[in-house]
């Protein structure tokens, strides 16, 4: 007789989309922060 298996949903890995991770890494590479006096200026390279 065939065994019945059920998926254990709680163990299913929940991960963000690959595009989300890619966007974060691209943002990180593009961002540089310059401190001038008391101000931090965010520069994002295209």
């Amino acid at each position, binding site marked *: 007789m065939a065994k019945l298996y059920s998926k254990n949903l709680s163990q299913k890995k*929940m*991960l*963000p*989309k690959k595009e989300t991770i890619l966007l*974060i*890494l691209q943002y990180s590479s593009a961002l*540089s*922060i310059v*401190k001038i006096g008391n101000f931090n200026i*965010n520069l994002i390279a295209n």
Partner: protein
Amino acid sequence: MANSILSDAVLVNNYIAGDENSLAVLINRHQSRIYRHIYSKISDRDVSDDIFQETFFKVIQTIKSKKYYNEEGKFLSWVLRIASNLVIDKFRNDKKMPLKRDTEEYSVFSSIKDTSLDVESKLIKNQVDTDLKLLIEKLPAEQKEVVMLRFYSEMSFKEIADITGVSVNTTLGRMRYAMANMRKLIEKNKIYLPA
């Protein structure tokens, strides 16, 4: 040494030094835990992705502006705290602008009313918030941390225990002491806190 066996603190230092790959390793290492933390409160994949992304944007900005205090074992709890705050902001914004659709049984105009507080209530609320914050500030650090995570970040005692690295019982104990201390401070300073 392979990046995958380096500690979080070392990876953060490498990232500060310009190694972008260290960030990828940190994300890869903690993405599941952080994403589940967000999803457990939001229950929407797309919104969870947005908050996950926003969380790491803040992480990157803070680290790159050299405001991050790099202590061993603190990276994940710090990121989880940022994520929790963003989740709270999301709920607050949704509460301010709830999305309601007009249907045959329900008219959006039937529920629209001005629920904002009047000036007096606002003043009282602001005063109560300020008093409460002052009271919390006077608590010992570990009690203050539990109160902040419980009431301001809306975390469960289990999550607080995980983040602070103590047992759930210790967390509950700290909360109990915090409440007792706050009660004493309220009585001592004769503070009136309306419900």
